C-alpha cells in the first residue's frame, strides 16, 4: 500500500510517500513527481520518514529523473530516510547522485 501527500512550503514542494514502494505502485510515485515538475516546481523534497520499503522499481523512479532535472534546473532532495531504506540507496550508489539529508531542516537549508 502506498499513499502520497504533497504540500508546499515557500518555493519548496514536499512529497511524503507512506508505505511500501514496489513495482505495483511505483507508477504512483512517478506521476506525483512528474506532476510537480510539470507545474513548474523548482525544488522538490521527498520526506522519506514514512517509506517502509523501496524496491528496485521504486529506486528506478528517482533514477529516471536525474538527468531531466539537471537539465531543467530542478533540485530533488530526500530527507529522513529510515536506516534500512537509506542502506538500499547507498548500496546502489544513488546517495552519490541525489542529496540525502538526515532531517528536513538540513534539506531546506542546503543549496
Amino acid at each position, binding site marked *: 500500500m502506498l499513499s502520497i501527500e504533497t504540500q508546499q512550503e515557500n518555493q519548496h514542494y514536499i512529497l511524503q510517500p507512506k508505505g511500501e514502494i514496489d513495482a505495483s505502485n511505483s507508477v504512483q510515485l*512517478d506521476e506525483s513527481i512528474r506532476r510537480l515538475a510539470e507545474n513548474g516546481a523548482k525544488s522538490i523534497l521527498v520526506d522519506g520518514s514514512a517509506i517502509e*520499503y523501496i*524496491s528496485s522499481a521504486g529506486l*528506478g*523512479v528517482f533514477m529516471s529523473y536525474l538527468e531531466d532535472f539537471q537539465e531543467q534546473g530542478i533540485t530533488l532532495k530526500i530527507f529522513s530516510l529510515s536506516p534500512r531504506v537509506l542502506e538500499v540507496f547507498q*548500496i*546502489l*550508489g544513488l546517495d*552519490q*547522485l541525489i542529496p540525502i539529508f538526515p532531517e528536513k531542516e538540513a534539506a531546506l537549508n542546503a543549496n
Partner: protein
Amino acid sequence: MIKLPTIHIGRLSLLLSILVWLSLLFVDLVRLFGVINNLNSGIAPEITWVLEILFFLTVYFFYNYNLQKNAQNEFLNLLWRAASTGIFASAAFLVIQLFYEFLGDSKLGQEPFLRNFFYHVHFALIAIFLISTTLLWKKLILYQKTKQVVQQWQTYEIGLLIAMFFVFFSQNTFGYSFIFGFVILTVLGGFLSVNLKWIPYLTFKEKWKSLLFLAIIIICSVYLFLQTNAYSSAQQTYPINLLDNLFLISLYVFILIYALFSFLVTLFNLPTSSVFEQKLTEAINFQRLSQSIQPEEDEEKVLDILMDSSMSASFADGAWLEMYQTDRNQTIIQTRWIEEKEKEELSQLIESNSAAQNWAKESKADLLNPLPLKISHPKFGSLLLVPLVINKSVIGRMVLCKELKDGFNKEMVSIIETFARQASISVENHRLLNQAIQNERYQEELKIAQRVQKALLPINLEHNQGFEICAYSNAADEVGGDYYDTFQLDQHRYALIIGDVSGKGTSAAFHMAQMKGVFQSLIQLNLSPKEFMIRSNAALSRCLERNHFITASIFIIDTLHHQVCHARAGHVPTLFYRSGNQKAEYLGIGGLGLGILRNMQYEKHVEEKEFTYHSGDILILFTDGIVEAKNQKSQQFGFERIRALVEVNHHLSPKEIQTKLIDSLHDFVGGDGLIDDDYSLLVVKFN
C-alpha cells in the same frame, strides 16, 4: 440340445386367430345344418363360446404386439389407424348390405348358410375394430401415465377379461347381472376417459386433423353398433348369438365415450392451442440460448437466437441490437424488419425520452430491467429497451418495436428479460472461454521463455584446483532478472560475475539477456574490473529503459598469486569469510549501479579493490532477493543472518553451505511463504 425356432408372436397370433375364426365358422355352420335338417348335431353352444373367447384373445395379442413393435406412436398416427380400421369395417359391411339389396328376394338372398357366413365376417370385423381401437386408446390414456392410472387400466382389463367369460353364465340373455356388469365396466371406462393429456401437445393443424379422425371413429362405431342391433332383432336366422356379448358391448361404449371426450376436449382446446405452442417455442428457445457457444463459433449466433426468440415472444414488428465496444462507439450488430432511417428516428426519440435517459444512467447494471416506452412515431407505437448485462456492466441493448401502443405486457417483458439474461450468460461464457484459451497460450509461451532463459545461466561453472564453486538461482515468476556467469581468462585467472536487473518478470528477463550479451563480449577484452564496469555502463545505457538499471559485481580470481580483484556496480555487497580470524565481513567498496548515469560521469562513481585470499576463505555472492526476503512478521532476512550462517558453517563444502543458506531462508520465510523476488546465490571456497 434342440434349438427351438424363434417364435414370431405377431404372425403366430394372426395365424391362430384366422384358424380360430375358421373353426368357429365351421362349428356354427354344422350346427345350422343340424337345425335346418332337424338333426341333433350334438354341438353344445359352449364350444362356440370358447372359440369366440379364443378369437378375442388372439386378436388382442396380435394388436398388442403390433402396436409395441411400431415405435412410431404419434398421436395422429394412432388416431388414423383406429379411423381406418373403422372405415374398413363399415365399408365391408355396406358392401354386404348392398349385395343383399341387389339380390332382393332371390333364392340366394334367402340362403341361410351364406347369411351366416357374412354374419361371421361381420363379427370378426367388429371384434377387430373394437379390440384394436381399445388398444390404441390405451396408448393415449397411458401417455404421461401415473401409477394410479396404470392401476385403473389394469382393473379395467381384468373386468374385460371377466366379461368375456360372462357368456357362460348369462347364456346371452339380458338379465340384471348383464346390466350390473355393463354398468361397472362403463363407469370404469368413463373414469379412464378423463386421461386426455396428449391433446395439448398437438399443434393447431394437428388438432383439426384429429377432430376429423375422431369424427370418423364416432360415426363408424355408431353405425356398426346400429347394424349389430339389426342382427340381434333377426335372431331366428342365426342359430347362435355372437354379438350380444358383454365384452363387445362394453368396448363399444368405452370407445364411444373416449372418442367423444377427446373430440370435445380437442374442439375446446383449439382456441388456446396457440398459447401453448407459444410457450413451447419459448421453452425451446430458452434451451437453445442456454447451450453454450463453442469457442470457434461467433457470439452473433447467440444474439441471433435472442433476437428471433424475443421477437416471436412479443410479436414485435421490428427490432435492432446494439453492442457497445470498449471505446463506447456503438456497433450495430443486427437489425430486423426495420429501415436504417426508421432506426435513426427511433434512436433520437429514445435519446430525448426522460425515462430512457434515467434508464441509461442506472449505475447498478445488474438491477437494470427491460423498459417499455410509449413513443409518437408515424409507424411504431411502443418500444421495449432490453439491456444486455455482463459482469455488472452493460454491454449492449436490444430495442423491440411494435406498431401497437402499449404492445408489451408484463408476461412478454419477463420472458424477454429471461432470454436476455440467458443470452448474456452465454456470451459471457463464450468470452471467458476464449480468454482462458488465450491465457493457456500465454502460459505455454512463458514456459518456452523459461526454458530459454534457464539456458542463459551456465551449467558448468569454470574453475580449477584453486577454488570450488557452486550456484543456485530461483525466479519469482516464470522468468527472472538474475544472472551469474564464470569465465576463464587464462590458465590461472577466472572471472566471476553476478548481476540483477531492477524489477522482475518478463521485462527483467529481456534485460538479463542483454546483460549477458554485454558481459560475454566485454569479458573477452581482458579488462580490469573497473574498466569492465565503465564499459558495461556505456553499453547497457543504450539498451535499458529509462527507469531500469542493473546492479552487478565482478571478481577476477588469480589462483597463481592468490589475488582477487573486484568492482561493484550498485550490487548488494559480497560476503568474505577469512579462515585466518574465522570472521566473515561484507566487502566495503563504492560503486554506482549500471544504467543510472548514462554519460562519462560514471567513471567517478566506480572503484576497484584487490585483496589476497588464503586456503579456506569463502566468497558468498548473492542478489537482493535473499536479503529482502520477508517473514510473516514483515522482517527481512537481512545481511546479518547470512553472515552468521557462513561463520557457523565455514567448514562445510560450498554445496553444503549453499544448502544451509537456502534451507534457513525457506525456514525464515515460513512454510508456504513466497519469496516475492528473484534470488541467486554463488558460493566460492578457496583451496
